[in-house]
């Protein structure tokens, strides 16, 4: 088997995104790295099935996603992150650009059903089109849209962003504006 340099470079370039997707899916660094490794191995083993010039990332994400669900079906549970263990593995915490706390968001994302989480990640984080996300997940475009919307709504509920506390008028302003 020979991999041409351009394809090899494309595979290498996909690793950070694959890993980010895997970490977000599993909420676990070790599982994520296992998934990425297995994805690369499987892709390499079946590289002859990949049609040059088509969307390599979509192909790789499909493999990773299917491996994740295969494992998930076997485990039937999500791995909880021991408190602090996850944070300790981060190189540094990201700059906070909102009132949301990084850990709160990560925890909330982990509470989403896997199908909603992957749809949200593919479209909202990875920037894929609904069509590509639908192909990766093997469902209709409308299903992906629904899952993204549900995921978004559920995150808002978990993070209590649907009551106007985090944005908009504060309590004093609301009291002033409230009808007498």
């Amino acid at each position, binding site marked *: 088997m020979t991999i041409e340099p351009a394809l090899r470079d494309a595979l290498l370039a996909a690793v950070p995104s694959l890993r980010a997707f895997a970490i977000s899916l599993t909420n676990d660094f070790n599982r994520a790295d296992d998934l990425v490794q*297995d994805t690369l191995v499987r892709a390499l083993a079946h590289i002859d099935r990949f049609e040059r010039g088509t969307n390599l990332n979509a192909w790789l994400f499909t493999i990773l996603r299917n491996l994740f669900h295969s494992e998930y079906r076997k485990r039937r549970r999500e791995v909880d992150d021991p408190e602090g263990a996850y944070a300790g593995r981060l190189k540094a915490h*990201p700059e906070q650009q909102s009132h949301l706390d990084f850990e709160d968001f990560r925890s909330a994302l982990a509470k989403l059903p896997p199908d909603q989480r992957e749809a949200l990640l593919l479209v909202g984080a990875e920037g894929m089109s609904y069509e590509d996300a639908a192909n990766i997940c093997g469902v209709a475009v409308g299903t992906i849209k629904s899952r993204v919307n549900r995921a978004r709504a559920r995150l808002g509920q978990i993070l209590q962003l649907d009551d106007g506390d985090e944005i*908009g008028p504060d309590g004093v302003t609301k009291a002033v504006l409230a009808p007498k």
Partner: protein
Amino acid sequence: MTEDSTEDGRDPSDEPPGAKPHPDVATPGAETWGTGPSGAGPSVPAGSAEAPGAGASNVARLHPPRIPHHPTLDRAVQGMIGAQLRSMYEHYIEQPIPDRLLELVQRLGADAASDTQDDRGVQRLGADAGNDAPDDGGVER
């Protein structure tokens, strides 16, 4: 509720063609996040159960919908979630790649020049991956 309906029963694909995301939440793939009703719409959120009939308009003015259900805030919340999601994801992308993946990646490079070694490595690692994983699904070409 079917899977293809949204939380409030709306099909997201039924958004009015004029609906545009709030400028503050415009993002790559903005259609994902800009799903709220257009800001140029009625003062009462579209689809709201409180949408008044003609006789109820005075009541609606005296008791306007609660602020949290205002579509602009909804879009702002969506934008906040989207920004946080992308921030988290970018942060993960920037994390250093562990050695074992780097070694695999380096082997990919070596494989291009040495097929024999490549096959051995794939088989060994492939056994770790298990044989019951599904195939690569709908994008096989």
